[in-house]
C-alpha cells in the first residue's frame, strides 16, 4: 500500500515569474480515488507530473513530496518507476513498439524480468483486460479505446501501487471512455490501487471518486467529497465551477435552490429526485433549451444523393446509399457510433473525397464539377485533429496563406483582424504546434472563415476541449450561424448539440436512420437516450 504526501509544494517553471503551483499540500491515502479538476492552466497536470519522477518538468520546486514516508527523489529509479504508473491523454503517442504483445512486455523488459515471470504476468493481465484476442495485432490497427486499454494494461504490468491518469478519457468517444473508466474503477476497488486522475469532464467520474480536489491558479481551492464539491459549486454560483459539474447536476441546480437538499450527482439519483417531485417528463419539457428555430422548409444547400463509399476494393462499404439534405440555415448535428462513417460522410460532403457511387450536390449542381477555388468559398471543413490544418511556422503565416487563397487583397491586415475577432491575436507569432488543442481549433476555424464559406463542416469540434474552451467555441459558432452560415457537425457531445443545434441526424450502418428536430429526436430514441443519458435527460 502506498500513499503520497505532498507538503507545501511550490513549483515555478524556468523563465516564468509566477509559480505554476503555490503552497500545495495534499495527502492521498492508500486505495483512494482522487480526481483533480480545474480550468486549463490551473496546474493540475504539473502537479500530476511532479508525482511521477521520470516525467517531472524542470524548474524550481520547494516543499516535499513523500511516497510511503520517504522523499520521492530518494527512491531508486527502478522502484520509483514500478511503484507509480502513468497513463497520458493521447492514446497513439504512448505506444512504443509494433504489436500489442510487445507493447505489454515493454515495461517488464526494461526491468530485466525473467521470461517466465513476464509470461505469467502477461497471462494474468491479458485475462483481466480481455486483451487475449488482440495480443498478436499491430497496435496501429486498434481503435482509440483499445489503444488506451493497452496503454493502461502496459503500465499495470509493472504492478504499480499508484496510478496517475492525465486526462485519459479526453480523446475517447463516450462509450470507450465509460469502458475504460469502469476498468479503472475495478482496479481501484479490487486491486486497491490508488488512483489520481486529472479530468475536465466529471460526468461519469463524480459518482466513482472518493475525493475531488480543485485547483485554480496553482492553488488548491477545494478538497473534499464529490457531493460536497457539487454543493460548493452551487453555493459559489461561479460559472467556471458549475461548468465542471456533471450535466445532470447542473440541470438539477438550474431548477433552483429550494429543489433539493443534496445535489444529485448521477442520473439514477436525479431520477429518484424527480420522482419524488412529481411528473418528470412534464418538468423536463418546460426546460428544453434549444434556442434556435428549426428550418423545416429551407432550400437544400448541400445534398447527398445515394452515396456509396468504401476505402478500398476489398473492404466493406462505409456508407451505403446515404440520401440526405442540409438546408440553408440548418445547424445540423450528425450522431453515430465509432466507425459508423461520420467522418467519411463529412469529408465526402466537403468534397475532399469522392464517392464511388452517387453524388454530392451543391444546390442543384454536382459538387465534383465545381472548381476547387469555388469550393473553398462554398464549404469550409474542419478536421477532427486541427493540427492537420497547419503547414507554416507561425499562426500568422498560416492565416495569411488562407487569406491569399481566399483572394483577399490585404491578406496580412485581414488575417490580423480575424485573429482579433477570435481572441487569438496574442498567438500570431507562435508556432502552431506549440498551441494548445483548443487554440489550434480556434486558429483553424479562423483560417477557414477567412474564405467566408456558406457552409461549415466540423468533425468532432468539442473533442478534448475543457468546458471554457467549449463555451468559447460555441459562442463563435453561434455568431457565425446568426450571420447566415449553415453549420453541420459530427459529434458525440449530445449536450453541446442539444444546446445549439436545430436539427439532429443519426448515421448507422452507413445510412441515415433518424433525422429531425432535437426534441422529438432525443425523445424518440431509446438507445441514444441511454448512451448519452445525462445530457438527453437534460433536454427532454
Amino acid at each position, binding site marked *: 500500500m502506498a500513499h503520497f504526501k505532498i507538503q507545501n509544494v511550490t513549483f515555478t517553471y524556468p523563465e516564468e515569474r509566477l509559480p505554476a503551483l503555490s503552497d500545495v499540500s495534499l495527502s492521498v491515502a492508500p486505495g483512494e480515488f482522487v480526481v483533480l479538476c480545474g480550468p486549463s492552466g490551473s496546474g493540475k497536470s504539473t502537479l500530476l507530473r511532479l508525482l*511521477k519522477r*521520470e*516525467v517531472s518538468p524542470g524548474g524550481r520546486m520547494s516543499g516535499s513530496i513523500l511516497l510511503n514516508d520517504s522523499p520521492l527523489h530518494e527512491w531508486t*529509479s*527502478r522502484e520509483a*518507476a*514500478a511503484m507509480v*504508473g*502513468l497513463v*497520458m491523454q*493521447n492514446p*497513439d*503517442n*504512448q*505506444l*512504443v*513498439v*509494433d504489436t500489442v*504483445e*510487445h507493447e505489454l*512486455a*515493454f*515495461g*517488464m*523488459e*526494461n*526491468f*530485466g524480468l*525473467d*521470461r517466465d515471470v*513476464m*509470461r505469467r504476468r*502477461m497471462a494474468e493481465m491479458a485475462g483481466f483486460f480481455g486483451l487475449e484476442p488482440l495480443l498478436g495485432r*499491430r*497496435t*496501429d490497427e486498434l481503435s482509440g479505446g483499445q489503444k488506451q486499454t493497452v*496503454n493502461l494494461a*502496459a*503500465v499495470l504490468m*509493472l504492478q504499480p501501487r499508484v496510478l496517475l491518469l492525465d486526462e485519459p478519457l479526453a480523446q475517447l468517444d463516450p462509450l470507450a471512455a465509460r469502458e475504460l473508466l469502469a476498468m479503472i474503477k475495478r482496479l481501484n476497488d479490487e486491486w486497491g490501487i490508488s488512483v489520481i486522475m486529472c479530468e475536465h469532464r466529471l460526468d461519469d467520474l463524480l459518482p466513482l471518486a472518493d475525493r475531488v480536489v480543485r485547483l485554480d491558479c496553482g492553488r488548491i481551492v477545494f478538497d473534499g467529497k464529490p457531493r460536497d464539491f457539487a454543493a460548493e459549486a452551487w453555493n459559489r454560483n461561479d460559472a467556471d465551477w458549475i461548468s465542471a459539474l456533471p450535466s445532470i447536476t447542473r440541470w438539477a441546480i438550474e431548477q433552483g435552490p429550494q429543489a433539493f437538499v443534496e445535489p444529485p450527482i448521477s442520473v439514477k439519483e436525479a431520477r429518484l429526485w424527480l420522482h419524488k417531485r412529481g411528473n418528470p417528463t412534464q418538468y423536463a419539457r418546460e426546460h428544453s433549451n434549444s434556442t434556435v428555430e428549426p428550418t423545416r422548409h429551407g432550400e437544400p444547400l448541400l445534398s447527398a444523393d445515394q452515396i456509396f463509399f468504401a476505402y478500398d476494393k476489398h473492404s466493406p462499404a462505409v456508407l451505403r446509399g446515404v440520401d440526405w439534405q442540409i438546408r440553408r440555415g440548418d445547424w445540423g448535428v450528425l450522431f453515430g457510433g465509432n466507425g459508423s462513417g461520420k467522418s467519411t460522410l463529412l*469529408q465526402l460532403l*466537403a*468534397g*475532399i*473525397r469522392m464517392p464511388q457511387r452517387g453524388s454530392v450536390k451543391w444546390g442543384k449542381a454536382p459538387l465534383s464539377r465545381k472548381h*476547387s477555388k469555388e469550393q*473553398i468559398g462554398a464549404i469550409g*471543413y474542419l*478536421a477532427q*485533429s486541427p*493540427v*492537420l490544418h*497547419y*503547414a*507554416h511556422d507561425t499562426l500568422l503565416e498560416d492565416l495569411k*496563406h*488562407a487569406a491569399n*487563397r481566399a483572394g483577399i487583397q490585404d491578406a496580412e491586415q485581414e488575417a490580423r483582424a480575424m485573429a482579433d475577432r477570435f481572441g487569438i491575436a496574442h498567438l500570431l507569432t507562435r508556432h502552431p*504546434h506549440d498551441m494548445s488543442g483548443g487554440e489550434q481549433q480556434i486558429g483553424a476555424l479562423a*483560417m477557414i472563415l477567412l474564405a467566408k464559406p456558406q457552409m461549415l463542416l466540423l468533425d468532432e469540434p468539442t473533442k478534448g476541449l475543457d468546458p471554457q474552451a467549449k463555451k468559447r467555441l460555441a459562442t463563435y459558432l453561434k455568431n457565425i450561424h446568426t450571420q447566415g452560415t449553415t453549420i453541420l457537425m459530427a459529434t458525440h457531445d449530445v449536450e453541446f448539440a442539444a444546446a445549439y443545434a436545430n436539427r439532429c441526424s443519426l448515421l448507422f450502418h452507413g445510412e441515415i436512420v433518424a433525422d429531425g428536430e432535437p426534441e422529438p429526436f432525443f425523445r424518440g430514441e431509446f438507445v441514444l437516450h441511454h448512451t448519452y443519458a445525462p445530457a438527453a435527460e437534460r433536454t427532454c
Partner: protein
Amino acid sequence: MTDSFGFRSLHPFTILLYYAGGITFGMLLFHPLILLAGWAAAVVVNLHLDGGREWRRWTVPMAVGCLLILLMNPILSHRGRTVLYYFGDMPITLESVVYGMTLALSMLNLLTLFITYRLVMSEQKFLFLFSRLSPKAALVAMMALGMVPRLRRRLQELMLIQRSRGITVTEGSLAQRARNGTRIVGTLLSWTLEDALQTADSMQARGYGTGRRSGYAGFRFRSRDMWTVSALTACAVLLLGVWASGYGFMKVYPNLGSFRLITGDQVALAGYITYLLLPLGWEWRDRKSWRTLKYKM
C-alpha cells in the same frame, strides 16, 4: 501452415544456421550439375512452403539477372583456350561461356533459397536473433516498425486536409509542387517529433533505461531443433571434407574439364541436396499427421 508446424516451427537459430550453410555451400561448390540439382532442391523447398507463390513473383528479376551474367561473362572475360566465335576482334571462348553459366546457376540457386528465407524467418524471429546481438538496436528496429504505418497514415491525412487549403503536390507548377511537398513533409516531421516527446515520456515512465533489459519474445529450442542442427552439422562436415579434398568443382579454365561427376562429386551432390531438403522432413511429418487425423474423423 502456421508458425507452429513444419519448417517454420524451427527455432530462429536453427533457421539461421540452415541458411548460413545453404548459402556458403551454394558458393563453395562450383559444378553446374551440382548447382542445378541444388536449384531444383531450392525450388522444391519453395513449393512446399507456399506453393511457389513468392518464387513466381521473383521469376522475372531472377531471369534478368541470370541472363545478364550469362551474357556479360563471355564478353568481359576472354580466358580459356577454345574460341567459339569472334565478336569483332573479341574472342568468345567456350570456357567463359560455361563459367558464366555456372555463375548464373550459382546465383539463381542462392536467390531461390533466399526467397524461402523471407517465408520462414518472420519479423519476430529475426528480431529475436537480433536482440541477442544488441537489445538496444533491436528495440530501435521494433519502434521503427511501429512508426512506419503511423507515419504513412498521418501523411495521408495531412495531404487530404492540406489539399483543401491549396497545398498539394498534384496541382500547380513543378516548383510550386516541390515547395508544397517539402512543406507537407516538414509539417509531418515536426508534428511527429512533437509526439515522439510523449512517446519518450511513456518509455521513461515504464522504467526504460533503469538497468539491464531482458527480452520477452521467446522461442524454445526443442528436440526437433536438436535433431535438425545435428543433421545439418553432419552434412556440413561431410561437405566441407569433400570440398577440402578438391571435389565438387568443375575445372573450367584454362580448358574445359569434363561434366562427368566422379565419386567425390557425387558425394558432394548427395550431401548438398540432403542438406537443403533436411528441414522439409518436418514439413512432411506434420502434414502426415493432418492426413492421419482426417482419416480418423
